[in-house]
Every structure is written in structure tokens, then in C-alpha cells.
């Protein structure tokens, strides 16, 4: 009898399993103390849904996956979507590599399915819809700032479409990220900001920081290692760096409350896993963490094996007797060396005057003995006219010939320049890429409201497989912390890194904007003067006048008149 009951039970369970599409939600926070005394907090929220948006079947019943994004995926036949909003610039040399790199401003790149016929109009509509969802000015993305990179942005999920006709990439370096972008981003989370790690996301603290970056990544991925069925992954990430001096008043002491003005009391009840990782690789020489946790975890991330203390929020014991978790990190000494990032990029504009200039891009390879290739992507607006014949690539004073160059020249007011090249970086070297440009004159309605501020040029993107010191994990379906599983790893000996350089701010020749009225007045005056004299010449009749009699003669005549004598 009991066995029968169990059997029924199992049957019911199986039925439920089969009927409901399975979805799963995980949340995670990584805290990494930085050597500069700043602190880096990286949130990741992942929703995985065993469904298929691709085969044209209509997906319309949502549980954990947000409905608005699901509708976007099915309506626009999106295969992969990556969008990020960033305030501030990630200082690679001080902070090391971030878990999810992002350029300042807004970045959007989308792979469409190969069933899309008119990619450009779909892209235009998609950016407009996304701009509504995220309250951002993504509607300013048009053909003049969209490119189709041929090699730099490969799909991160599964999918054998590598035809870059279905890829669109655009950045808005000027986009200012603020609360109104954070609120819709938080709304996409199943628990909102009511429970779990998301209660820490208070905008007054998050935006009082040196770096803030929030992103949404959607991609299809394998359910298991055999990859027979696909599921869709929505990854929402938020990275923030709190400054030692402005946020901590210079004290090397951090706590959750100090960073976010909140403590944690519970995990999101919908999350299957809810964890906090603290990078303690340098502990105990440098800092101490309290409360201490017996759980430790090791992960190879960004070419380095790191040790983390793990706090599992789904366990009641984590919160202790006070039923609230307030992690405290205290530095003991300020010494210590950071593992220098192996790849780094910089960019600046050189030259003087308002006619020509030169863009310099520097790529640093700090690896002591290995050289590796990098892909450099540059998208430059049309109003900087690149002279591609002046392109030079030099490393260690010698000419370094790129093995692959993809250059698409700009068209005025239609599309930007796209320059992609594959460069081999020699070990321990700086490679400099320079190209000259000429500034174009804009029409007076094309200037921004504050044209004297200058015009932004988006960051260069340097993507590379960097040789790893430790063996990387290549199994993409194995249970791993979220922060280490974002970029898929194909081989053990290297890991993927994407580095963004600074955006450029370029001054263009700016006219005086009261000019049109002045021009109208001036031309009218000129026309009037020219026309007036011409008219006079044509219509007046000219006669030779008798020369005036002299003064003496006139006086004499007056006298003669008085005398009654005829005048002279």
C-alpha cells in the first residue's frame, strides 16, 4: 500500500515535471577587495528557462523569466542580446580584470536568427523597444553608429551562425546611467528588490561610487553536456567599485552596511542558489573577514586560481543569531602586490588645431615570455575622416604587420568607419596603432546642444585569448560559480579577455550658432547695396549740368539785379 502511494506520488511529480517548462533562478554576489583599498562588488542573477524561442513556436506563459524580454526575443527573433550601461571607467591597471567588461556609456550587441530578412529595420525597432524597457536613449542608435564586426563579437551561447550579417553592434559613449536605468533593470528580477541579494541595490549608494556597470545578457545555451536541448539564459549583472576615499572616508574597513546601507536577512525564496563569495586569496596577510565561514571554494577565473569564502544564504545558519548578515572586511596592512593584468589598452587623440589629428591606441602585453594575438575593433564616427593609408602598427620600435585587416570606410551621415585587425603582441611590449584623421564640418542642425563639450568616440575593443598560468575549466555545463562561467572556455591553456579602452572626446570646428541670422542680414545688405546702385545706373538719366557760377559772379549778379541791369 505504501509502495503504491509512493508510486502515485512519483507519477504526479513526473507529470508536473513534464508539463511545466522548468525554470531556475540563481543569485550571487562576489566581493573582491582591491589593492588600492577600494572594493569591488559584482552581482549576478541568472534565470535559466528550458524553452525554445527559436523554432517559431509562440512562448507566452512566463514564470521567472520576465515577460517583456521574452516578448522582445520572440518578436524580433533575437538569438543573443547583450546590453550594458556603465558609468565610470574600469581602471584595469589598478583594479585588475573585471568579471564582465563593459565600456563607458551604453553598449548593445545583438545576434539575430538567420530567419530575419531585414536585419536593419528589425535592429531599428529593437533599439526603440529596448530604449523604452530600460529608459535609456538607445533610440539614438541608428545606422551612423552601428557596425557589423566580422570577428570581434562571436556568439557567447550555442549557435552555429557566425555570419556577421546577423550581428549588430553599437555604443553610445555619451549615455549617462542613473536611477531611472536601475529601476527597470531591478524590475526584471523575479524577487524585484524585495528579497534576496537585490535588497542591497539601493541607488543612492550604488551611484555614489567610482564605477557602476549594469548589464543584461540573453543567450541560448546547452542544458547538458550532450547539448540535445537548449535552454535560454538571462544573466543580469551589476558591477560596482566603491571608492576608498569618498565611500569609506579613507578607512580600510568595509561592511555590507557601509557599502549598501543594508544588511541581508534572507535569500530570494525563488532562488535555487543564493551565495556570497569573498575573494580571500590574499588573506590572512592582508585583511580579515568576519563572520568567518568554514565554506571555502576555489575557482580558476581570468587565468588565476582564486580562493573564496562562501556564504550560502539559503542556509539559516549563515545569518546567525541576529538573523542578519553584515559582512565585515578589515585590512591589516596596505602592502602587497597585485597580479598585474596581462593585457591592457589605452587610447588618446594627438595633434593640434581643428583640422587634423591622430588617434593613438596602445596595447600592452605584460606576459614575460609569451606573445599572443589580439583582435582590435575600432568604430569611428563618420565626421572623423580616417586616412587609412596612414595606419601604422609598431611594437618595440619595429613595424608590426597585422595578419588580418577588415576595414569598412564610412559614408557621410550613413555609416561609421569600422576597423578590425588581428595583431600579434610580442611578449612584454607595447604595441601602438596610429591613424590620422580629418575633422568634417557638420550641418548646423547636426550639432549636439553643447557642441563645445566635444564629440565622443566609442571605446576600442581588444579581444584576446590570453595564455593562462593555471588550467581553465572547459566544461561549460558543470555547476560553477556564475562569475567564472560567463565567457565559454574552449581550451585549458588560455582564457578569453575583452578590454575596453577609454572613449575619446574630440573637438570639432564649431560655428557661431547665431550665424544664420547674421548671414541673412549680411547677404540682404549686400544684395540691397549692389542692387540699389545697379538700379540707379539703369533708370536714372544723366545730364551735363552747367558749371556753377563763381561766388563773385553771383554777388555781382545780385547787385546788378538790384540796379535793374541784366545779369552777366
Amino acid at each position, binding site marked *: 500500500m505504501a509502495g503504491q502511494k509512493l508510486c502515485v506520488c512519483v507519477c504526479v511529480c513526473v507529470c508536473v515535471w513534464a508539463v511545466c517548462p522548468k525554470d531556475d533562478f540563481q543569485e550571487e554576489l562576489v566581493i573582491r577587495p582591491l589593492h588600492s583599498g577600494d572594493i569591488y562588488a559584482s552581482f549576478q542573477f541568472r534565470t535559466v528557462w528550458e524553452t525554445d524561442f527559436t523554432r517559431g513556436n509562440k512562448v507566452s*506563459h512566463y*514564470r*521567472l523569466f520576465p515577460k*517583456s524580454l521574452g516578448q522582445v526575443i520572440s*518578436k524580433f527573433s533575437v538569438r543573443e542580446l547583450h546590453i550594458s550601461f556603465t558609468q565610470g571607467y574600469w581602471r584595469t591597471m589598478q583594479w585588475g580584470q573585471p568579471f564582465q567588461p563593459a565600456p563607458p556609456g551604453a553598449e548593445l550587441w545583438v545576434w539575430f536568427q538567420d530567419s530575419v530578412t531585414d536585419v536593419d529595420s528589425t535592429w531599428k525597432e529593437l533599439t526603440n523597444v529596448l530604449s523604452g524597457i530600460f529608459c535609456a536613449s538607445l533610440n539614438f542608435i541608428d545606422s551612423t553608429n552601428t557596425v557589423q564586426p566580422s570577428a570581434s563579437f562571436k556568439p557567447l551561447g550555442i549557435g552555429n551562425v557566425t555570419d556577421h550579417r546577423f550581428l549588430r553592434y553599437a555604443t553610445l559613449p555619451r549615455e549617462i546611467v542613473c536611477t531611472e536605468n536601475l529601476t527597470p533593470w531591478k524590475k526584471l528580477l523575479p524577487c524585484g528588490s524585495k528579497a534576496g541579494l537585490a535588497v542591497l541595490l539601493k541607488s543612492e549608494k550604488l551611484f555614489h561610487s567610482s564605477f557602476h556597470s549594469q548589464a543584461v545578457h540573453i543567450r541560448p545555451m546547452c542544458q547538458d553536456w550532450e547539448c540535445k536541448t537548449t535552454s535560454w539564459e538571462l544573466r543580469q549583472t551589476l558591477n560596482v567599485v566603491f571608492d576608498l576615499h569618498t565611500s569609506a572616508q579613507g578607512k580600510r574597513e568595509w561592511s555590507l552596511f557601509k557599502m549598501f546601507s543594508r544588511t541581508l536577512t534572507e535569500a530570494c525564496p525563488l532562488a535555487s542558489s543564493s551565495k556570497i563569495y569573498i575573494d580571500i586569496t590574499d588573506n590572512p596577510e592582508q585583511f580579515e573577514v568576519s563572520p568567518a565561514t568554514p565554506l571555502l571554494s576555489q575557482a580558476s577565473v581570468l587565468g588565476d586560481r582564486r580562493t573564496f569564502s562562501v556564504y550560502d544564504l539559503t542556509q539559516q545558519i549563515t545569518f546567525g543569531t541576529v538573523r542578519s548578515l553584515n559582512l565585515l572586511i578589515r585590512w591589516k596592512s596596505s602592502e602587497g602586490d597585485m597580479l598585474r593584468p596581462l593585457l591592457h589598452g589605452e587610447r588618446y587623440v594627438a595633434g593640434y588645431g581643428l583640422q587634423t589629428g591622430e588617434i593613438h591606441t596602445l596595447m600592452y602585453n605584460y606576459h614575460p615570455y609569451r606573445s599572443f594575438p589580439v583582435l582590435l575593433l575600432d568604430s569611428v564616427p563618420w565626421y572623423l575622416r580616417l586616412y587609412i593609408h596612414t595606419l601604422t602598427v609598431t611594437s618595440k620600435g619595429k613595424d608590426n604587420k597585422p595578419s588580418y585587416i577588415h576595414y569598412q570606410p564610412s559614408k557621410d551621415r550613413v555609416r561609421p568607419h569600422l576597423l578590425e585587425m588581428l595583431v600579434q603582441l610580442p611578449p612584454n611590449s607595447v604595441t601602438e596603432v596610429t591613424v590620422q584623421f580629418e575633422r568634417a564640418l557638420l550641418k548646423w542642425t547636426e550639432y549636439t546642444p553643447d557642441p563645445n563639450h566635444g564629440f565622443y568616440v566609442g571605446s576600442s575593443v581588444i579581444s584576446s585569448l590570453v595564455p593562462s598560468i593555471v588550467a581553465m575549466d572547459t566544461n561549460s555545463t558543470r555547476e560553477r560559480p556564475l562569475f567564472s562561467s560567463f565567457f565559454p572556455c574552449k581550451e585549458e591553456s588560455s582564457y578569453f579577455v575583452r578590454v575596453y579602452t577609454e572613449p575619446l572626446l574630440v573637438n570639432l570646428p564649431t560655428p557661431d550658432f547665431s550665424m544664420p541670422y547674421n548671414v*541673412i542680414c549680411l547677404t540682404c*545688405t549686400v544684395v540691397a547695396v549692389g542692387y540699389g546702385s545697379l*538700379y*540707379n545706373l539703369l533708370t536714372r*538719366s544723366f545730364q551735363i549740368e552747367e558749371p556753377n557760377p563763381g561766388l563773385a559772379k553771383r554777388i555781382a549778379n545780385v547787385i546788378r539785379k538790384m540796379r535793374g541791369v541784366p545779369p552777366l
Partner: protein
Amino acid sequence: MYVHKAGLQIDLRGQLAALSIAAVVILIGVPLWWRTTETYRAWLPVSQIQELANLQLQLSADVEVVFARGTVTPEQQKKVPLTLTQDDEHVVDEDTALRYRYETRYRTATIMEEDALNQPTAAEADLSLHTLSESPCGSLVVYVIPESSSLLPEDVDVYVGQRRTALLRIGAQTRVGRTLEQLLSHLEPRVKQVLQVMSFSHTDITAALSDRVRLSPGNKESIADSMRAFKSSPGYEITFSLLNPDPKSHRLHWDIEGAVQTYIQPLLRKLAPLANFSIDSQTLYYAMLGVNPRFDSSRSAYTLNSDSLAHVINPVEARLGSNAASSNPVLNFLLYVPDAHHSPLHINDHKKQEVPSNAFHSPRWGGIMVYNVNDFYGPEAAFPVDINIDMAKVMGVFLAQLRLLLGVQSSAPPPRFLVAPCSSAGIADWELDRLMWSRSVENIATATTTITSLAQLLDQIGNIVINDNIAQQVSSAVTSLQLAVAELESGNLRFALQYSKEAILASERAFFDPSLLHLLYFPDDQKFAIYIPLFLPMCVPILLSLLKIVSDARQRRREKHAKAD
């Protein structure tokens, strides 16, 4: 003398030069300036739009009145007129007039119909009559049955079936033996009453015209009725949301996919000619209502009063999210499961009585149902509790609300009428017809208002550029409107609705075209400020020299006169 003549010649040359410059300016300069500063305005069918502004709608309904055996005598049978057309005219306001044309055809029942009418119950008779012949959309068949017939209960005179048929019991006072004219004149108002229930009534149609005609404030009830339903639109998005404010205690499971297939889809399939529908559902956690329910200790339950229901929606709506994929109106249906500490929750009506369905709807927005789950578990249950939601109960409420919001009328029938219960599809054929009549009229009214106001606007602001595509949209809207009106007149309901939908789409597209907005409109004073520096220095010398020529000519004439004298 010679010198004088030369001076005259030079004078004449100057005058000729001035005149020719003036001629060049007027003949070439002014047209050139006019052409280059002109705005492009494509041709619009203005006269046809003005005709539409004065809307004369005619609605024609076909009625077939079938006499069963025992209602007319054989002599009368021969004299039964074949058709009878009746017109009913109403003037709604100065530019809108309505005319209803009822085309009644009389005949006697066939043998098969007689057999069908001999079924034991009205519902069975209705079904078998339907299988005999299918009447087209918008038409009706009224079977007149003898008073002695046992099909209808004692207190019922008219049975309204699920399709387009009605059974009408001949009254006691019109016994066989009276003249045919008397019989017909007695039947006529009763057939009309059936028509008003089953196809259209004047109140419905005037309510559908509300976009065009400002209704005189009638009774409150009818205004509330007319404002409840959504405006006609080519598509609707239906969103079901499960609100779970307490995921820590309740783990809710709802089989929304199955429920939609079973309960909602049959209705929507029926309504497919009316509009496109798309359905989706979502689950929202930690979604709270905007008001705090009051604890009623006498019932040991929380209550929401009817006057606080208005504040419930706004905070929830922020979480619902708008539809990213289309701009059609959204019908929201929310299922709210109160959290464990605030259950059970009941909605009270105006009389402080519990609402049995525990649900309410908001006009032109959607419906909310409160679903209490506290009976599913005991006080010592381990949280979170898994709860399966009874979808039949939920969908019954939502379906009723959906019918109301889509404008499927369910007002009480007149006395002595019996309306057949709803079929599995949730809507009877005649209810659909009724909806199609009023939706066609509403679409026509909306499209004509849009088109006439667009034409008026373009007429008033001369600076707006009218592109070819706008002109094309306007013309296609006008053509569709004319076709829709014509189809209504000839009684082809399905085509009328189709054309009216096309008209509304084209007119909205023309009206909201961005090219009508983005031009800069320079006011006249600014234009003059720009043109005066150019025109004034040019015109002043020309005008002065013209004046001089005129005054010279006058002087010469006077001199000539003086000489002649």
C-alpha cells in the same frame, strides 16, 4: 529744342528700364520665390471627406419569418406577402442620421422544419433547425409557433437560440381566424423586439457612435455600460497575471496553458473576425495591492471595500509591464493570492455584502480576482506550501469579465423572453452579430472623425507638408469607409466590418504619421522678419520710380491739356 528732345529721350529710357525691371521682378522673381518656398501638399479627396462628414448610415437586417403549421390558415397561406421592407429613421445630430431597414421575408415552414419544431425541447429544436440551414452573418430566422406548442414553458413567449434563430409563440389574441393583415400587424412589433435583442437596437448603435456624437446625458447606468467595454481596435492583448505577494509561504501552480486552451480559446476563435487576440501570462512575486485590507473581526477575515478598490490597481500596474511587442490595448486579468498573514480576503460591495465571485473589474482595463488559499493548509503546515489553483473557478470569473470588457452584451432580456444558456464557445452566434453591428458602426464613426479632423487640421495649417504616402493612406481610408457604408447598407455585415477595420487602420496611420509633425512651422511674423531685409531695399526703388513715372505722365497730360486750351 534739340537739347530738350535728347533729355526727353534719356528720360524715356530710364522709365523703360524701371518698367522692365518691375516686370522682371513681378513675372519671374515673385513666381520663383513662390515656387521655391512652397510646401509640398499632395492632393487629398476633400470633397469625399466632406461627404463623409455628413454621415448617413443605413443598417439593413434580413429577417425571415417562418410560420409553423397551425399559425396561419391555408387560405391565408396563399395570401402571405413575400417580402416587406420597413424603414426606421432617426436623426442623431445635425450631421449624423441613422436609418434601419428591416427586410422581412415571410414563408411557411418546410416539412423538415416542421419535424424539427416537433422536438420535445426548445434547445433541441434550435439545434436541429440550425443543421437544416445556416443563415448568413447578420440575418435572423424567426419561427412563429402556435400557442398550443409545448416547446416553450408557460410564461415564455420568445425563445432566443444559440444560433441565429428565435422561436416566437403566437399570442392568444391572434387566434387563427382573424385576418392576415391583423395577424401581420400584430406580429410586426414583436419581431422587431426580437430583432432588437438579437441584432441591434437604437441605444446600442448610438452608444457606438459616441466618438462622433456627443450623447445627451442619459441615465447613469447606460453611460457606465457604454464606457465599460474596450474601444474597438484591430487587436487586443490579453494578459493573465498571477500575483503572489508571499512566495515564502505559498508556492503556487496554475495550469494557465491548459486553462487558456479550454476556456478562453473557444471564445476567441469565435471572435476572430472581430479582432486579433494574443494571450500571454506571467507570474509576479512580491506584488502588493495598493490598499491595506481592513480586518473584520466578526467574520475573522480581511475585507476590501468597494470604494477602496479604485486604489488597488495603480501600484500593481507598475509591475505588470507594458507589452513590448505591440501597441494594441491590453486587457489585464489579475489573480491575486493574498499572503498568509492577510487571508482570507474578501471583497465587499456597496451594501457591505461579500461579493460571491470575490472579483471585480475595472472599465477598459481588466479584472482582478482574489483567490484565498488559507483553506488548503492547516495552521501547522510547513512553509512554503504547494498549492494548485482551481483554474475552472478562476476562468469562469475571467471569462465573464472578458465578455463584459469586449462588449458582448449580457443585459437582461425583456420580460417573457428566454435566452438559451451559453454554449461551450462562450458566445452565441447572434451575440457575435450584435457585437459586429455595433463594432462596424463604431469603426466607421471613429474613422470618419479621424479623417475629417485630419482634413480640417491640414486645411487650417497651410505649412504642413502632405506627403504622397499620407495622401494614399487618406484615400484608402476614404475608399474603405465608402465600401463599409455601402456594405452596411446592403446588409453584408462581415464585409462591412472588414472594410471598417481597414478604414480605421489607414486613418490612424495617416493621422499619426510622424512626417506631419516633424516640420518646423514658421509663424508669419518671423517670416517677415527674414524677408523684409531682402524685399524692402528691392521694392522701395521700384515703387518710387513707378510713382515717378505715373506722376510724370499725369504732368505731361496736364500740360497737353493746357496747350490745347
